[in-house]
């Protein structure tokens, strides 16, 4: 059996990759995907702990996270499409309207 530490380390790596992706990439879609990566790294942690502790709560929680992530994806993609229609770009360093 793979020890819990391995799962946690993988999860941390995935989360860090996600963070860097969000902070460093310019394309909104990639940023979005990085956010999904962060969410899923957390899911991985939850599932790992659930299996380790023999408690199903963590796995049920993952379903909720997935549902919210799906809803978020729908809204997020809609925003990106709307942005693209208005600005003709999805490069978020060219968009600075979030200051008012």
């Amino acid at each position, binding site marked *: 059996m793979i020890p819990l530490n391995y799962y946690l380390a993988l999860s941390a790596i995935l989360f860090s990759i996600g*963070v860097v992706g*969000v*902070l*460093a990439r310019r394309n909104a879609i990639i*940023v979005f995907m990085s956010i999904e990566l962060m969410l899923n790294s957390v899911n991985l942690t939850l599932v790992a702990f659930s299996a380790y502790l023999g408690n199903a709560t963590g796995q049920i929680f993952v379903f909720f996270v997935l549902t919210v992530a799906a809803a978020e994806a729908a809204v997020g993609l809609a925003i990106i499409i709307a942005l693209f229609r208005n600005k003709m770009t999805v490069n*978020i*360093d060219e*968009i*600075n*309207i*979030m*200051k*008012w």
Partner: protein
Amino acid sequence: MVMQEYIGFVVLFPFIGFLINGLLGSKIKSEKIIGSIGSGVIGIGFAIAVVIFFQMLASPVENRSHIIEIFNWINVGSISINVAYQVDQLSIIMTLVVTGIGFLIHVYAIGYMHGDKGYWRFFAYLNLFIFMMLNLVLADNFLLMFLGWEGVGLCSYLLIGFWYDKKFEKGTTNDAAMKAFVVNRVGDFGFLIAMFLIFITFGSLNYETVFGRAAVFSVGDATIFWIALLLFVGATGKSAQIPLYVWLPDAMAGPTPVSALIHAATMVTAGVYMVARASVFFALSPSVMLIVAIIGALTAILAASIGLVQNGIKKVLAYSTISQLGYMFLALGVGAFATGLFHVVTHAFFKALLFLGAGSVIHALHNEEDIQKMGGLKSKMPTTYKTFVIAALAISGIPPLSGFFSKDEILWKVFDAGYWPLWILAAGGAALTAFYMFRLTILTFEGSPRWDKDKHPHEAPEVMTVPLIILAVLSVVGGFIGIPAALGGGNAIEHFLDPIFERSNSILALGHHDVVPTEYILMLLSVVIAVVGILFARHIYLNRKDIAEKLSEKYSGIHNLLWNKYFVDEIYDATILTPTVKASDKLLWKFFDIGIIDGAVNGTAKLINIFSSYTRRMQAGFTQSYATYFVAGIIIILAILIIR
């Protein structure tokens, strides 16, 4: 039925008059209606007061003082102050004077103010004044008295500046009004501090409680000394005594009925009333009594000497008022409280008469106030002339007119108390009084006319002359309420007032003296002084005007000093006003207000501005920089958690 219960109506009616004339006056076109309402409400008040007075006379002495509660005014913690009126011998006399003289002057004003565009405003203010004055004299506690005290000050301000656009001396009447108000504030400050001290010391502001508790203090107690002294400071402001008398001559900028009512007969005697009311404090501090007596005597002679050379008819009367108020304080200072009150009453009669007579002359000569431009009015205005002469005789102290009895009583009490230097000052003042009053009378009414040919002076209408006649009668007979024992009288007013001053008299231990020959000698002396003064004035101003000119040339220094009123205004200007204005301008305004207060406010804003000019760059609108802040925040929080 106890009539005292109805004292509230005496106070209420003038207030109703004020409301009607003040709120609806501009809509009422008829002067007759406004004037009738204005004087009618005072007349009703006077009638009620008279009934109360006679019922008081009919009741036994121990049953003459009543406290009538109207409503509970202030109730905070241990302070409970009622609007309550103390109807006793002292307050009923003041009420009779205020409403009685007030009524006559209101009636007079119906004629005097005829055609004025502020007719309704005038009567509204006058009614408000009477209302406030009644609160002052009838109050049963210091706070309600203070309300009246400030109220009459306000009305005085409003009425001095009644013709607010009219030129007066170097400025407008408004300047005179402000001067009166500000100088009065100085005195009021003393009154306020005294009131705080009273409350701290006795835990109450109620007369009965306070005076009852004060009576157990020992003579010369330091707290009582300060209370008495500060109360007297308040009195010097309202009653125009040294050093705060400077506002009263300028107060003559107001219409003449105002000068008669407020600045001669009633308001200026408020200080005398207050000292008499708080006589226990004064009796307990002999040093303050001495100060009161000295200030009174000095004011009496100083103001009289200024009155010798002034040319404004009302100016002379104003200085005369200050001088007479000095006599009242002199009486209070030697412990003759009732005598001081007696002089308040007689002075109210003849001084109101003098002012109304002066008003009648000013009216006839179309606002001419310079007595050098009058003369020869005797035949044109016989009623005014006769009544004026009666008043002048009364104030000079010619028996058996009212002024003789009250002034002579004061002089005798001063001498009897052993203050002979003060007696000399007061007797000298009496000589000056006789002189300047007849200088005024002769220059105004006798000799050849010196007014412009196009003026046609004529006697005032009846609505003005009838009050003159009534006041003249009162000036003649008013003294009979206080005929001294030496002349076979019972000194009714002093016995009437005795219960009020029982406590203070027992502290002062003034016994009733037997009649001694000295009293007759002094009486004779003061009459001789007055007669000499009158004859001297007649001789100079009727026959030998050159003497006056020669005298003023020979003693030009003294004349200049008197003409310029001892330069007191100029001294105050240089020592108090200019430094205050300069300090306000340079220190308070330009340094403190602009530098520190504005600086602090603007500095705060500037600091925030600088701070935000840096921090605003954080909010550039880029999603990723925001996300970076999130991450940085998380890292910081995690770091803290781990390190801890």
